[in-house]
């Protein structure tokens, strides 16, 4: 910096200093300082009027009255007042100094957040989190601080967490810090399950990784093994399907496993102490678990089938829900059969070295205790009444009814997407389904407009609009702008066996 600039900067600093010094607050401060110093100084020069062993005495007229002599009576008081005043001013000065360095107490939160932001700029996440954690006492020390009133400490943590949540919902590493607060709350009052459940809900709203929230629930469950609400809530974490299709099966499995545990315990409880509330809860959970089991993969189809059967046959269950359960039962039963046949095909391949020519020889093998309906040619039928599809070249087994059901859903989704296409193209439908596919891929390319679970479930993650779940290209009517389904995909025909279940056949 040039010398002139340095001089100018020094002058500016000096001017700022004097501007501050001449501020009225400073003037008052200096006046008070002068008065107090004056009092202290004056007390040093005042003559002390005190009897040899007694209180201060007033000078008599004969001795010659003077201000100094009169004030001498109050010498000690004057000295004390001066000293107290100086000490008070000293405190004021020090307080200002501290405030300048640290800021006011009320601003501590803001400063803390600013410091954390600064730290986050050049340190890794772990270090920032550690700094944040320093703000919260450890569980053990909280127990001591609260003099053993740990329940009260848990209340404090719960209220603190609410304050923190409400200040700005998704800011910073809120999940990590909240998780820590909730875990300490759990440490302080392990049996406050209501708060633990609410805490889990807050955490699940903050964090897309539901396994992390599940771990919190597991901690709470370990402390409250008899509680049924906690595993139920842990299961509910996984009911809403994730955007990532790869995770969907695992989410459904987790939900089924949690709900199955709750169901087993609820049923035992119901045997011991029957109650209408528990009975209703069991039915609702069975219904939900049955449906989720259909999404969970081969190991879970039988669980789903049994639960859905129970719901479909329950005359006290609401009719609409019974009907839905019966339809889902057809799907579950068909999936069970297809899975067993697939396993039999694999066993045959392992034994004979090739896939069987058809499924007829395998039917006896899988029969076991299960009745497998056969058509006039001896081919197995799925619960919908369609022959099981089999490809001898690849050994793939599939239920036609299940595929038809998926095709109905997928056709509905594609027709909705054609509607979207029309809206974007002055009412014109796409020329072919490839054009629709290009449009759909572009439409859902924005990170703010990802395809939802309903769309990806029907079309797959690649948003395939050209091949139907039946394995054939869609029958697309370009003139009408819609896809048509084969006759056997007509819902009234497809679900005709559901009616028989409801009627009791």
């Amino acid at each position: 910096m040039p010398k002139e600039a340095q001089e100018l900067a020094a002058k500016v600093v000096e001017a700022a200093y004097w501007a501050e010094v001449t501020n009225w607050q400073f003037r008052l401060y200096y006046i008070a300082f002068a008065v107090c110093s004056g009092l202290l100084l004056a007390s040093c020069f005042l003559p002390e009027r005190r009897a040899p062993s007694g209180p201060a005495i007033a000078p008599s007229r004969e001795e010659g009255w003077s201000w100094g002599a009169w004030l001498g009576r109050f010498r000690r008081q004057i000295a004390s007042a001066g000293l107290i005043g100086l000490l008070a001013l000293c405190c004021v000065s020090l307080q200002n100094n501290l405030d300048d360095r640290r800021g006011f107490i009320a601003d501590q939160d803001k400063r803390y957040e600013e410091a954390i932001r600064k730290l986050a700029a050049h340190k890794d996440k772990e270090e920032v989190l550690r700094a944040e954690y320093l703000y919260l006492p450890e569980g053990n020390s909280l127990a001591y601080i609260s003099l053993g009133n740990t329940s009260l400490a848990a209340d404090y943590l719960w209220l603190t967490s609410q304050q923190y949540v409400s200040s700005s919902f998704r800011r910073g590493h809120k999940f990590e810090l909240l998780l820590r607060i909730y875990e300490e709350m759990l440490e302080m009052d392990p049996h406050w399950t209501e708060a633990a459940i609410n805490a889990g809900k807050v955490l699940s709203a903050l964090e897309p990784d539901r396994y992390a929230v599940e771990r919190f629930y597991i901690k709470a469950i370990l402390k409250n093994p008899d509680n049924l609400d906690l595993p139920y809530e842990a299961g509910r974490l996984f009911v809403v399907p994730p955007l990532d299709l790869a995770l969907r099966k695992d989410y459904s499995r987790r939900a089924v496993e949690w709900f199955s545990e709750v169901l087993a315990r609820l049923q035992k409880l119901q045997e011991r102490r029957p109650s209408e509330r528990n009975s209703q809860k069991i039915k609702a959970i069975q219904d939900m678990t049955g449906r989720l089991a259909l999404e969970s993969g081969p190991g879970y189809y039988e669980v789903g089938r049994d639960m859905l059967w129970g719901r479909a046959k329950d005359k006290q269950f609401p009719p609409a829900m019974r009907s839905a359960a019966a339809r889902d039962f057809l799907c579950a039963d068909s999936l069970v059969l297809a899975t067993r046949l697939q396993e039999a095909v694999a066993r045959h391949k392992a034994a004979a070295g090739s896939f069987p020519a058809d499924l007829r020889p395998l039917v006896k093998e899988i029969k076991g205790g299960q009745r497998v309906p056969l058509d006039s040619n001896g081919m197995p039928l799925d619960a919908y009444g369609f022959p099981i599809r089999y490809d001898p070249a690849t050994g793939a087994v599939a239920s036609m009814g299940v595929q038809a059901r998926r095709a109905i859903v997928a056709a509905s989704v594609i027709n909705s997407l054609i509607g979207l296409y029309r809206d974007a193209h002055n009412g014109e439908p796409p020329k072919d389904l490839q054009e629709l596919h290009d449009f759909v891929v572009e439409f859902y390319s924005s990170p703010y407009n990802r395809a939802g679970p309903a769309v990806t479930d029907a079309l797959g993650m690649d948003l395939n609009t050209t091949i139907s779940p039946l394995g054939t290209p869609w029958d697309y009517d370009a003139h009408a702008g819609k896809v048509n389904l084969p006759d056997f995909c007509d819902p009234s025909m497809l679900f005709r066996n559901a009616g028989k279940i409801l009627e009791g056949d």
Partner: protein
Amino acid sequence: MIVPVIALNTFREAVRDRILYVLLVFGVLMIMVSRAIGWVSFGGENKIMTDLGLSAIWMFSGMVSIFIGTGLIHKEIDKRTIYSILAKPAERWQFLAGKYLGLALTLLIALLLLAAIFLAYLWFCGAPVTLALGQALLLNFVEMLVVTAVAILFSSASTPIMSAIFTTIVFFAGQLTKWVVDLGAIYKQTHPWMEKLLHLVYLFLPNLHNFNIRRETVLATQSRLHMAIPVDELMAATIYGLSYALALLLVAHLLFKRRNL
């Protein structure tokens, strides 16, 4: 018959003390405020209300024990009224016992008053009220009997200010005696004898945490259960408290007996 007379007089003297009313008013205020804190919370309103209420009763009954208990004997000495009592056919132990029982009666009345207000308030606010709360309040009273005995012990040998300081320390430290064991665990490897010594110290210190069943009580109340802890546990804690209080009173008697009045 001298003990009940002294006890009754001590009770009369204590209820005339303004500090008792100040503490009671603060206790009641704290109980009332608990509802407002519960409102702030999302969920668990009744739990927070019960927690705060029980803790307020505990804290304020503790303060009554300390502030009134520590001044009782000194006041008699200071006003020289003790001479007129001891001049009559009254032993020093009778004087101490009377003082202690009088203060215990005062505490009981104060506690019953606070408990009645607390329970009525809970009921009025629709929070669950069960017998488990009675268990917590009973143990609270037993804890205060121990604290009062500590106050009488210090008061029989020291000035009111020093007694209040020492009793407050015992009151707080008594909640955290487990700390001593934790401290001992640090020395487990280097100085095993230290660990044993600290464990011995822990056993002799008044463990006031034995009387803290507030967490269990709140849990039981929220689950609408009538027992926070089993009866045998309750009895064990009560007998422990009464035995400890009696032992402290005996030590206080020894000190008071030697005191030159």
